[in-house]
């Protein structure tokens, strides 16, 4: 059964310097509060994994937590580029950032392989693109029945995956719905997992479209209402599109970014 913890304790115990860390959530249910707690606790040398390193990873990268990024699309959805991500790649600020770059289909299948206890996944992907030239983790594989050549990618096995969900019960059974992305796979692929939730309830009333993660498959659950903001939790909040639009200006320069970080992350303290 998953342990119920505070966000600060969950991050302290489950996220270590040098870890491979996946924060997932596909536009919806992005664990921003947990990301901020990782920044506050000053984690270093992380390999950050995420299909869509959007604003949350822009913040972690700009705060200097990351050594390496494994990803498939790094932008501010509907707005434009990520300036902290760009600054790290183009000018190594605040430190160099190694990249391992994939496509969405490749990353999704890497999580599937991790969740499935397989060392690799097979897909029709990457063929003819320049990605395999720069990402050694993309290799050809031959079908033993047809002789056809397909593409293999290795399993992702994060040390820890962090996701946000709508609810959990007191046994740590987690319930999420709406766009559930790759969260189940990311949690099951990881050695440890931390789930922040809008609320902890006595009973998880079934909801259409729900994904339930049994408590025995989750390491820890922390109640963090609003923990996805400026992303959202379907049924609890709506996406703060203005925040995403404003982020473009906030993040464009190092000093405005640092001021934002001081005020909204460091001074804010743990949510719980």
């Amino acid at each position, binding site marked *: 059964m998953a342990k119920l913890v505070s966000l600060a304790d969950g991050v302290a115990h489950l996220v270590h310097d040098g870890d491979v860390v996946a924060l997932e959530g*596909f*536009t*919806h249910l992005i664990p921003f509060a947990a990301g901020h707690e990782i920044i506050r606790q000053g984690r270093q040398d992380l390999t950050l994994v995420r*299909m*869509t390193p959007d604003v949350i990873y822009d913040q972690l990268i700009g705060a200097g937590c990351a050594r390496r990024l494994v*990803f*498939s*699309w*790094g*932008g501010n*959805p*509907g*707005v434009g*580029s*990520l300036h902290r*991500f*760009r600054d790290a*790649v*183009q000018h190594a600020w605040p430190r160099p950032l190694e990249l391992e*770059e*994939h*496509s*969405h*289909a490749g990353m*999704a*299948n890497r*999580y*599937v392989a991790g969740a499935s206890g397989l060392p690799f996944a097979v*897909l*029709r*992907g*990457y*063929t*003819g*693109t*320049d*990605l395999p030239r*720069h990402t050694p983790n993309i290799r050809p594989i031959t079908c033993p029945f047809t002789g*056809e*050549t397909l593409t293999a990618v290795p399993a992702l096995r994060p040390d820890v995956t962090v996701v946000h969900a709508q609810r959990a019960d007191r046994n740590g059974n987690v319930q999420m719905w*709406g*766009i*559930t*992305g*790759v969260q*189940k*796979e990311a949690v099951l692929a990881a050695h440890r997992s931390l789930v922040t939730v809008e609320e902890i309830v006595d009973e998880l009333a079934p909801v259409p*479209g729900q*994904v339930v993660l049994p408590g025995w498959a989750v390491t820890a659950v922390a109640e963090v209402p609003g923990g996805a903001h400026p992303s*959202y939790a*379907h049924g609890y909040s*709506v*996406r703060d*599109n*203005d925040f*995403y639009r404003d982020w473009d200006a906030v993040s464009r320069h190092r000093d405005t970014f640092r001021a934002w970080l001081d005020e909204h992350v460091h001074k804010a303290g743990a949510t719980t």
Partner: protein
Amino acid sequence: MSQRSERGNAVADWTADEMMTVAAARQLRDDTACFVGIGLPSTAANLARTTHAPNLVLIYESGCLGAKPDRLPLSIGDGVLADTADAVVSVPEVFNYWLQPGRIDVGFLGAAQIDRYGNINTTVVGGDYDAPMVRLPGAGGAPEIAASCREVVVIVRQDLRTFTERVDFVTSVGYGAGPGDRERLGLRGGGPRVVITDLGVLEPDPLTCELTLTRLHPGVTREQARAATGWDLAVAEGLTTGEPPTAAELTVLRALEATKSDGRLP
């Protein structure tokens, strides 16, 4: 996108971007399934669904199949997509069960660079891959959309930076280095059928696969189009001029755009 374009038809009451979006929407046929990226593709696809293609099936990579948003989502994961979808599936499923087998008729893509053979770059511009001049967001779903959809429609503003002889990085394959390359690579989708720009429409030459100017938007000249292209742009013999946006198209498009500013209905 809402300011008046300086090179569109300055007399009629529509912008070059509006013309581009309308022309793209017209490419989408009713009763087909369309894999939609965010931004211009989403706007055009929703315009099509709200006008001539009410049964267009919109598929977003967030896992929303058959989304029917009544406002333009800012991201591919906005709640309105899940709320209005026929089914919401996981991200692995949308790629593995729906895109990869070739079930989707049209892949609708944007581009930061596009070359003579319709190859697309959304990864890096200039410099090396490891030390690029400009780091772009990267691949997302595009490489497999370009590979697996029955056909691809590209929507992109036409200028010299974007329309380049050779893309700096092949993020998504069009026709590779020319005829036969898609087959050699084993790509099962048909590749780019049409590229819609703010100046006109380009289509691959059936023999050479080279993107060829086949239609101009009203008020645009072939010289303008050629001047905005980083290679010696071929012009089709039967070059035509497209129809301007209808009043109905403009009304719907502007209503849709208005919903985007605050993510709420006007």
